[in-house]
């Protein structure tokens, strides 16, 4: 006797082990687990083998990762441009200074700085609610200059902040020998949390909504996607992360000055995510790595080609030229960035391997 049809449909089917394992791998990959493991391994390597100065350079890379992931979420996933990254960094850093001077503990200062930046980001994003595209870009440029002006005024009007800016207390004490290694592990943890958060936002229902806003904003509204709320979410989250980076950078360096926050820095953030690859955790981290290394590499390259004198005099300018050319080449030839190139190469390799496998199977 045949089974009734509905009992077949409702009969619980136990998922196979392979299916479960594949599912776990998919979820972990979607949350950026491979990149997290990679960063943890590199942190382990750097902190156990490198000198304090090199660990400091590695820390600047980890700090850059935070902002680069934030911008990848904003630009790559949501399709909103921001040239105000440096402004939000400054907002985070100087709010942290302000909290610190009112006697708050480190964690409150860092998170408080991030929160202030997030609120500012939401205010700046207000015009973007009504407008598409260009307005947000122009608005963020304006916001950059306004924030940097306010921050600079604060620095000038505070008597004990010299031209070099504010000094911040050493979080891990002054006497410790490997303070930079301690920072590296703390930052590694922060970056892990940021990767998990950004990946979570960029996947599932939220991710689909954000990408629909990026690709077809007018249609997103008709699909019951609250466009305004999601845009504000993306902009608030990315400003929060940039503020966090600013605050942490101030603490790691022990000093912060308003002159650090130039429009050039903001443009470098844009360049970073473009070259690394948009809408990709791996791409954001890759971009941060390239742009942390570039000044050092260029210094050596210029010094080898044109002499040490030129390197110290004009090294930074040659570095700008190289990074600008790099961005232009990527924009014209590979808009998906390095991550996109790698993905394509991997895909091609897989096709070739599959074809070869099929040929050997059919040959037998």
């Amino acid at each position, binding site marked *: 006797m045949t089974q009734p049809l509905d009992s077949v449909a409702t009969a619980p089917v136990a998922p196979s082990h392979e299916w479960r394992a594949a599912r776990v791998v998919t979820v972990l990959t979607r949350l950026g687990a491979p990149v997290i493991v990679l960063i943890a391994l590199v942190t382990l390597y750097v902190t156990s083998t490198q000198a304090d100065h090199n660990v400091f350079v590695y820390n600047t890379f980890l700090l850059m990762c935070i902002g680069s992931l934030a911008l990848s979420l904003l*630009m790559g996933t949501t*399709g*909103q*441009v921001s*040239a105000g990254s440096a402004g939000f960094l400054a907002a985070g850093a100087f709010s942290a200074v302000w909290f610190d001077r009112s006697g708050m503990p480190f964690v409150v200062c860092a998170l408080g700085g991030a929160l202030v930046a997030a609120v500012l980001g939401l205010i*700046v994003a*207000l*015009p973007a609610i*009504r*407008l*598409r*595209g*260009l*307005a947000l*870009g*122009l*608005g963020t*440029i*304006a*916001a950059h*200059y*306004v924030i940097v*002006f*306010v921050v600079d005024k604060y620095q000038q009007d505070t008597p004990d902040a010299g031209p070099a800016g504010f000094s911040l207390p050493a979080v891990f004490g002054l006497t410790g020998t490997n303070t930079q290694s301690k920072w590296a592990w703390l930052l590694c943890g922060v970056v892990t949390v940021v990767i998990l958060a950004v990946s979570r936002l960029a996947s599932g229902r939220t991710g689909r909504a954000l990408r629909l806003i*990026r690709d077809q904003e*007018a*249609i997103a509204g*008709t699909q019951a996607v609250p466009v305004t709320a999601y845009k504000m979410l993306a902009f608030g989250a990315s400003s929060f992360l940039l503020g966090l980076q600013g605050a942490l950078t101030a603490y790691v360096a022990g000093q912060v000055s308003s002159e650090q926050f130039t429009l*050039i820095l903001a*443009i470098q953030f*844009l*360049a970073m995510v*473009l070259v690394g690859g948009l809408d990709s955790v791996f791409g954001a981290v890759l971009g941060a790595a390239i742009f942390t290394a570039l000044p050092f590499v260029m210094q050596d390259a210029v010094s080898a080609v044109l002499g040490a004198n030129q390197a110290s005099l*004009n090294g930074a*300018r*040659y570095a*700008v*030229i190289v990074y*600008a*050319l790099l*961005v*232009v080449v990527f*924009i*014209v030839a590979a*808009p998906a960035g390095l991550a996109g190139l790698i993905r394509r190469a991997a895909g091609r390799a897989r096709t070739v391997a599959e074809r070869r496998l099929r040929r050997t199977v059919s040959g037998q």
Partner: protein
Amino acid sequence: MDNVLLAVFGGLPLGATYALIALGLVLVYRTTGTFNLAHGQLMLLGAFVLASWQQHSRGPFVLGLLIGLAVAGIVAVVLYVLVLKRTVGQPHWVAFVATLVLGQLLDAAMSLYFSAPSYVVSIPGMPKGAVAIFGVRVGQSELIIAGIGVLLALVFIAALRYTRLGIQVRAAGQDPVLASQGGIQVRSLYVGSWVVAGILAALAGVLYGSTTVVDSSMSGVALIAIPAMVLGGLDSFEGAVVGGLIVGVIQGFITVYIGGQYVNAATYSFLLVLLLVLPRGLFGTKEVVKI
């Protein structure tokens, strides 16, 4: 009353410069849809070329000016043909980022090539004295520069409105497909509008540079002209001139009544407010999206 006049006459020369800058920005925005954030670097380039011509050769001013304008025009076209033209079809912000990065590239290259920290542009025959208008002393050269700027802008607008070529440019910007069906060479018009924008930038740079010194800070002036363009409505030529003059005069008032250090921050705050309350500006076209 004196302060009011001082503010107005202090702001007008700036406003005329902003009008010229905004015209160049509007021209490429309307034709090729690109917001050129490297416009300030083109200004600086024109002024640099003229200044070093005046420094190194005894040749006539006009020749140096023409070389400066030509260099800026050529570089503008190179930027368009090699890079910006190829961002068509990519997300809108790609061109935005590209012009920002190209601006950085030009800045770095210029600071390598023009190695002196600052240059001087002097326009021959420019009077040095000041005249009294309603009891306020105003620099003669600044008045003349304001006049030249406004005159250039008006001639340019008239050309766009009444000449055959001008009408073709506006048509190509409005509907490229229809314009090309009507026998208009849309692609050459795009290239041509970048040349003209580069020349306008260099003219603005020379006029602005002749009142101050020519140094790397000039590339920021084009960014401060953005509020003028937004006030005018982003895609309106007449709006660019009106917006430029208004923003210049507003800056004059800020300088006189609040203080020079607040000018930039106040202008950018003005832009943020403008984007919020009057995003289409005074003369802008309404954006309609059809699904």
